[in-house]
């Protein structure tokens, strides 16, 4: 039994070595004619053994499959060999748009525009050209707007196993202090009323600013 497992692990190594893209555990399971759960366990064990043996490569679960990649601490050597920095950095606008698409997919251009407040056309084109997003369907509404979603390349770019591994969006909803700052900033109430609420009661020389620090909900 142990010998067979060793054989399967060797087979996994050989298949992943020749693959262009991450190999899904399901595909490995099909090729080995073994259950997917077992294959997943063997992959984990292989990955762990590479780590403990201190190899220069690692086996990782990324974008829905397993692949070989170089260990992160060896980047200087690999970059020196490849002679160029292959990393394509994304602008703030591109990252924000990508974030919206990732969490709200499928999403139309118009919906992105209304969240960002700017026309996302150019950014969408760049993200699509780089393969991070793609058209995933059409809106059923009258305009039949194109809907966008993220791709496997996006997951690879972020080093994530699947879209479910994105951090939960709830973690990013601004905290009470931010909401408060915005509310104060956009307060409708006339200034006269606002400035009378202070505990000290003394009229401040700059009424609009006085409430900034001590507004309590």
């Amino acid at each position, binding site marked *: 039994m142990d010998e067979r497992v060793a054989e399967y692990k060797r087979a996994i190594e050989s298949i992943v070595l020749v693959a262009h*893209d991450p190999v899904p555990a399901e595909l490995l399971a099909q090729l080995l004619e073994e259950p997917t759960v077992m294959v997943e366990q063997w992959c984990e064990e292989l990955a762990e053994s590479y780590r403990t043996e201190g190899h220069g490569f690692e086996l990782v679960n990324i974008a829905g499959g397993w692949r070989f990649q170089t260990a*992160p601490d060896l*980047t200087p050597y690999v970059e020196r060999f490849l002679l160029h920095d292959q990393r394509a950095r994304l602008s703030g606008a591109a990252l924000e748009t990508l974030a919206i698409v990732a969490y709200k997919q499928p999403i139309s251009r118009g919906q992105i*525009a*209304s969240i960002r407040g700017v026309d996302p056309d150019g950014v969408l084109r760049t993200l699509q050209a780089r393969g991070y997003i793609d058209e995933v369907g059409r809106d059923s509404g009258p305009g039949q707007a194109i809907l966008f979603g993220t791709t496997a390349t996006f997951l690879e770019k972020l080093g994530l196993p699947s879209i479910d591994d994105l951090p939960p969006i709830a973690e990013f909803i601004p905290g009470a202090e931010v909401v408060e700052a915005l509310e104060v900033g*956009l307060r409708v109430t006339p200034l006269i009323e606002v400035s009378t609420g202070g505990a000290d009661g003394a009229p401040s020389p700059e009424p*609009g600013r006085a409430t900034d620090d001590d507004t309590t909900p």
Partner: protein
Amino acid sequence: MAVDALSTAPGTASSATSGTVVSTPVYEGPFDMLLQLILREQVDIYDINLSSIVDAYLAEIERMQLLDLDVATGFLLIAATLVELKARRLLPNPTDIDLDDEFALWEERDMLLARLLEAKTFKDVAQIFSQLAEDADLSFPRVVGPDERFGDVVPDMLEGTSVASLRNAAIRALTPKPVPVVDLFHVNPITTTVADAVAELLDELPRVGRITFRHLTSDLGDRIEVIIRFLAVLELYKQGAVEIDQPERFGDIEVIWSADEDFDTAAILIDAYDG
């Protein structure tokens, strides 16, 4: 190598001028500008005066050398809401308020608040994405594929590809993408001023009464001229000479002449864009 305009570092815009790269803060649209004004610089709405936003905006245009009309449209909308909020806060007598107007304004404010919060949420997510990508970039995947020993086994990747689909791919790839920027080969020094544009509008608007912003700017070649005219519309709105209506978000804006018969156009002209 093709360096696209988006590959600059987050939060900065690089403009290559004779070899030197100048980095300046960038507002990613009107929400972002407002967010930064309120949160980063910790200024209260009371301190945000219109002229300083307009100044910042013009400065931004000058730095970026690139402007999309939609950016301007979004900015105009938010500026309008801000002006209204500001006006309400400065109102001497709160009892003088029309309740319907008051609710409408609250609604607008809540909408703006909600959108700012949403914008802030994704801005924070973008930071995390940036970090994830940076970490992931440290590892290089093996994408070598099978060696020559497997040459016979590798399936033909062109199977199912027709000549027609190749032709279509060529058309897709070779058709230049529409680029929403100023025609750089015909940029002239900017000669018009906001005051000039205000004068033109004061001549035109009372005659036409109601006109879409698109029509109002259809004769203008340069985007910068369009922007200047839009700033002029904003100025007239501030002075209460026009009303602005936009039925659809990001749709065309209607400019409606709403001044009284005895509206003092001369006063506006003198006042226009003094700050």
